[in-house]
């Protein structure tokens, strides 16, 4: 059986997409959240359960505390308070912990131990995952149900001083606030003084209910000099005095009010031995939490060790303390000692509220919730509670009541623990099993591509699919069985947290079969290669020839870029990497052109028909980016000695100038949109153009770009599409004028701004028309079988349709990007690729590099924030999900898509050899899958890195999306290739 290498590559990429999807599903666990939205006022609190007699207590219980002060100290590790440092530097706190009316805990923070997610965890009680960062794109506001929003809705007045993150998370929630930035890490006194200076005034006032203080100094000291620095002690003493001030003031105030006050001292995350935080070591995860209130009774001589609780427990406790409903997606349980002093009925009521909330959350998130132990316990304890209430209302003897009550309480506490455990397991774990299976799939595909590289890139571009020997096929049958057994073992031991295990059996079995089939394919290809290698080595040695600087550059560039993905700052500045590579590529081309032009004749004799055999070493290198030995024969055999020597006159000058023109274009585009992180704030042309003062300039630029696009695209179109193109581009200008981005020359003042739906749909009609004509041409060429020009025209029309669509979707200041990309494509085709006769593989890699560079020229970056969502609304009345998603994806990946379709055009029209397209498809698949596979491994090994959520995860999403696009491109390639071979 034989298989075209293009088809083979397309299949491989499609399987790879599956693998990456599986990996992503495992990497981003579905967050535990409540789906019922944030409209919390409507729901009434769960009434007290009762058996028979109807309870009269359906309202929320009243608040336990009148005022709450939360003193959050960044990076307050547990031993700073409870250890020797605490005894030494925080005498007042130690006194409170040991003798005072307080409860002290070690609160465990879940990774990522970074401030913002930790604040979210403290206030919502949920475990913030990455997915909700993606979900509320661009809006840092906390949309989930949380204590602060609840408190504000209940009319509490909240005052905040400290880290600015809070102000961003909860805008308009605080009646008074003063945010300090945590930007200057080297400053550790000013940040805290800015908080403390408000204290005296605020503590005297009576007009607030909640006061939140966030001290950053300790964290900054940790970052500068680590947890053993002498500065830490000084800072702790300062914090101790602040705590004393607040506590005494609260105590003195309490005498006048009925209800006690609550003072919470806590940390958001710990501090590692090196002074940083973010990962999951014990020092970073364990934080101190002390609840201080005169309500907490304490017998003298009662020495307690701090108990271990979860950080998420604070949200539920605060809600109950303030008499608010518990946030819906909170997975924490009530810190029971807080309500211990209350009458039994209230205690049970609080516990019931919390369990009801948790079990609701469980029902929403776990399909098989009825089997969960926590849920069963909840049902049992609710029934018992009902009985207890009946007894209570019937006023039975206190002995029975208290016995039964304590039993119910114990039951509730167990249920709470079990519920919150199964919920947090749902939320916070990487699903390592799915990740592993996904990685295995991706790596197998990569191995298959690499192993079959030399053969797939050979002259015929076909692959043998060998029929396996009996022993081998036995192995292939046994492998799925073994994997299935493994699957069962893993699933039974890991419980219901794996995504793969929750899949139906048939699907999971399919995945296993796929994995084993791929493994067998890799093995058989390897054996085939060894057999083939022996045959190859018998061939006579070819003469060493043509210098391969370009191929070396391509190889090194790809390897270098892949390796650079392991470092967070290189990911942030990936645009720079691509610009750098593309520039270097241009200079290398420049060198090649000059050598060919001036010394063409000197080098000629050194070439031989088997040119390119010297790449063998490069091709056999493990990455295998540069194609195998045999490719070159077909393409290069016909190469004349000095292709550029014959050129004379203006053509020659154009060839000589072309690399410099391209470099200049790239430099211009680069200053259009600053991307990345370090230089993103620099002023750039794009911002200058989009400012309302420069509308005229923008209009002129857009018009010029549109005209350039027309001039460059129309030359190879049929007449009908030429006209359609012209109207389409005119329509685009009208659309931009209608939505108020541009101006007509005759229109001075601003007209009323509309959504431009008519104009955009007008353009869509032309886009569809051009695409339709192109497809018709392609189909016709397949039937008539001999008309080559019809086919190329058809392909070009499809390409121009895509260009028109891109021109519609891109922002007007990005139109030059499109125009210049067309210019560069024309120059490269005319003056570089055609005269120098690069082979298909080289041309493919160059297209890929330029496509990547244009992805960033457009203003994209590796953070989610730069995705231009407005493209999804062009020509649509309201948000319609599927078209909006497709349009946004196309607008984001315009660069790579356009360059890939240009590649198809170029290779088809050149037609140097019949197999060029399949070679290109194979190369494209290979060069895209190498970074993805490497990146998956990097991400897996760095999953506890400090920047995993801020830098690595968005890039992972981008890579996944890019792979999907690549798969689409490869399928398109294969389709074109099929029509090619048929015709």
């Amino acid at each position: 059986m034989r298989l075209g290498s293009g088809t083979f590559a397309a299949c491989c990429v499609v399987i790879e997409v599956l693998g990456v999807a599986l990996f992503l599903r495992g990497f981003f666990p579905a967050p535990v959240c409540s789906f019922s939205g944030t409209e919390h006022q409507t729901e009434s609190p769960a009434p007290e359960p009762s058996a028979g007699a109807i309870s009269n207590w359906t309202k929320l219980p009243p608040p336990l505390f009148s005022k709450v002060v939360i003193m959050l100290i960044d990076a307050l590790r547990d031993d700073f308070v409870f250890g020797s440092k605490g005894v030494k530097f925080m005498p007042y706190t130690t006194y409170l912990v040991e003798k005072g009316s307080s409860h002290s805990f070690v609160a465990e923070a879940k990774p990522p131990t970074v401030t913002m997610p930790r604040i979210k965890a403290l206030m919502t009680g949920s475990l913030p995952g990455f997915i909700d960062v993606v979900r509320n794109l661009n809006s840092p506001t906390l949309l989930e149900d949380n204590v602060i929003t609840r408190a504000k809705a209940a009319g509490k007045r909240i005052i905040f001083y400290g880290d600015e993150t809070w102000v961003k998370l909860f805008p308009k929630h605080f009646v008074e606030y003063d945010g300090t930035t945590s930007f200057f890490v080297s400053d550790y006194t000013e940040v805290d003084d800015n908080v403390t200076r408000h204290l005296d005034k605020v503590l005297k006032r009576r007009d607030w209910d909640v006061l939140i203080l966030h001290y950053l100094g300790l964290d900054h000291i940790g970052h500068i000099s680590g947890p053993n620095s002498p500065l830490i002690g000084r800072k702790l003493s300062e914090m101790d005095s602040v705590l004393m001030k607040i506590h005494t003031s609260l105590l003195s105030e309490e005498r006048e009010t009925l209800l006690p006050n609550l003072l919470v001292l806590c940390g958001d995350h710990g501090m590692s031995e090196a002074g940083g935080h973010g990962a999951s070591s014990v020092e970073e995860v364990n934080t101190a939490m002390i609840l201080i209130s005169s309500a907490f009774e304490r017998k003298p001589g009662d020495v307690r060790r701090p108990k271990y609780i979860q950080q998420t427990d604070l949200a539920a406790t605060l809600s109950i303390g303030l008499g608010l409903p518990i946030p819906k997606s909170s997975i924490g349980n009530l810190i029971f000692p807080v309500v211990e002093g209350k009458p039994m009925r209230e205690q049970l009521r609080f516990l019931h509220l919390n369990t009801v909330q948790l079990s609701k959350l469980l029902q929403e998130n776990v399909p098989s919730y009825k089997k969960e132990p926590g849920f069963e316990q909840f049902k049992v304890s609710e029934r018992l509670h009902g009985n207890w209430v009946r007894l209570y209302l019937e006023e039975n003897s206190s002995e029975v009541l208290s016995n039964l009550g304590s039993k119910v309480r114990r039951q509730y506490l167990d249920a709470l623990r079990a519920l919150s455990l199964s919920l947090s397991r749902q939320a916070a774990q990487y699903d390592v099993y799915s990740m592993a299976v996904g990685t295995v799939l991706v790596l197998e595909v990569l191995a298959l591509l690499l192993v079959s590289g030399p053969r797939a890139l050979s002259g015929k571009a076909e692959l043998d699919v060998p029929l396996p020997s009996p022993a081998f096929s036995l192995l292939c049958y046994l492998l799925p069985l073994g994997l299935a057994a493994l699957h069962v073992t893993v699933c039974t031991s890991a419980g219901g947290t794996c995504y793969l295990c929750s899949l139906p059996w048939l699907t999971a079995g399919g995945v296993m079969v796929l994995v084993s089939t791929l493994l067998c394919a890799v093995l058989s290809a390897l054996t085939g290669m060894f057999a083939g290698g022996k045959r190859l080595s018998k061939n006579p040695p070819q003469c060493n020839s043509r210098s391969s600087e370009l191929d070396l550059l391509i190889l090194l560039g790809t390897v270098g870029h892949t390796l650079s993905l392991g470092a967070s700052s290189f990911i942030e500045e990936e645009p720079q990497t691509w610009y750098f590579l593309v520039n270097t590529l241009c200079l290398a081309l420049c060198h090649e052109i000059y050598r060919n032009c001036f010394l063409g004749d000197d080098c000629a004799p050194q070439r031989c028909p088997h040119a390119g055999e010297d790449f063998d070493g490069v091709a056999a290198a493990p990455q295998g980016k540069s194609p195998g030995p045999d490719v070159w024969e077909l393409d290069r055999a016909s190469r004349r000695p000095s292709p550029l020597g014959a050129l004379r006159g203006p053509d020659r000058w154009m060839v000589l100038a072309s690399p410099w023109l391209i470099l200049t274009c790239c430099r211009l585009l680069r200053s259009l949109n600053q991307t990345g992180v370090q230089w993103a704030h620099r002023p750039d042309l794009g911002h200058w153009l989009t400012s309302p003062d420069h509308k005229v300039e923008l209009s002129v630029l857009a018009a010029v770009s549109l005209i350039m696009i027309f001039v460059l695209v129309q030359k190879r179109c049929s007449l009908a599409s030429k006209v359609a193109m012209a109207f389409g581009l005119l329509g685009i200008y009208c659309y931009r004028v209608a939505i108020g981005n541009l101006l007509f020359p005759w229109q001075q003042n601003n007209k009323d701004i509309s959504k431009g739906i008519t104009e955009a749909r007008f353009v869509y009609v032309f886009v569809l028309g051009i695409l339709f004509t192109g497809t018709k041409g392609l189909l016709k060429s397949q039937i008539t079988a001999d008309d080559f020009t019809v086919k190329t025209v058809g392909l070009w029309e499809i390409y121009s349709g895509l260009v028109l669509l891109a021109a519609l979707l891109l922002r007007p200041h990005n139109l030059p990007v499109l125009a210049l990309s067309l210019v560069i494509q024309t120059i490269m085709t005319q003056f570089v690729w055609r005269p120098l006769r690069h082979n298909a593989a080289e041309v493919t890699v160059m297209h890929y590099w330029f496509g990547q560079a244009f992805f960033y020229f457009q203003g994209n970056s590796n953070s989610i924030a730069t995705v231009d969502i407005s493209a999804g609304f062009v020509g649509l009345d309201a948000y319609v999900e599927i078209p909006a998603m497709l349009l946004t994806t196309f607008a984001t990946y315009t660069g790579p898509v356009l360059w890939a379709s240009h590649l198809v055009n170029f290779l088809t029209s050149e037609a140097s050899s019949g197999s060029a397209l399949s070679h290109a498809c194979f190369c494209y698949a290979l060069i895209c899958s190498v970074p993805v596979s490497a990146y998956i491994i990097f991400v897996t090994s760095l999953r506890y890195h400090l920047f995993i959520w801020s830098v690595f995860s968005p890039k992972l999403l981008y890579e996944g999306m890019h792979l999907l696009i690549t798969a689409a491109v490869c399928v398109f390639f294969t389709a074109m290739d099929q029509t090619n071979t048929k015709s």
Partner: protein
Amino acid sequence: MKDTDIKRLLYVHLLCIFSIILSIFIPSFFLENFSVLETHLTWLCICSVSVTAVNLVLYLVVKPNASSKRSSLSYKVTRFLKCCIYFLMSCFAFHVIFVLYGAPLIELALETFLLAVTLSTFTTVPCLCLLGPNFKAWLRVFSRNGVTSIWENSLQITTVSSFLGTWLGAFPIPLDWGRPWQNKYSVWLMVLTESARETINQMKDHGVTSEWRFF
């Protein structure tokens, strides 16, 4: 013949490295507040001037491609002027290339230009000394199999490794360490690579020498 050439080559490279090292230490006796990191611009000037001077002097002393035919004074003068023009042109060309690579157009222009000058002294000056203002000869030397003598071989290696050093020097720029030197287009790394390549070159010379003796 070749043996002596190799010896001379070795001395030439040693002197070059020596001049770079001297340019670090000597000026601190004459100039106040001189340090390589603080006043990097002055140092770059001094370094390039000294390397150029050493190159020229060595060329005059060693005369690797001593042509037998005598030439007139006017020919020599025009040749010299041509060399100067080539040097200036290469400086500007490098500057343009740096800007194309993304160096800011206006701010840091002086730094960029000085980098261009330094790079030219390390690449163009030896080329001019050895090959003269002959563009075709340059292209020949820098394409594969175009080398004819050991001097040209050494020239090829040094020049290419200078370019590589500059190219590699761009790598620390995206790192977010926030050091000021990162913005100076990593002249330092280039200079380091510079000395490294001199060392490598020297080692290669030694290798060649020993090989020669072995035969």
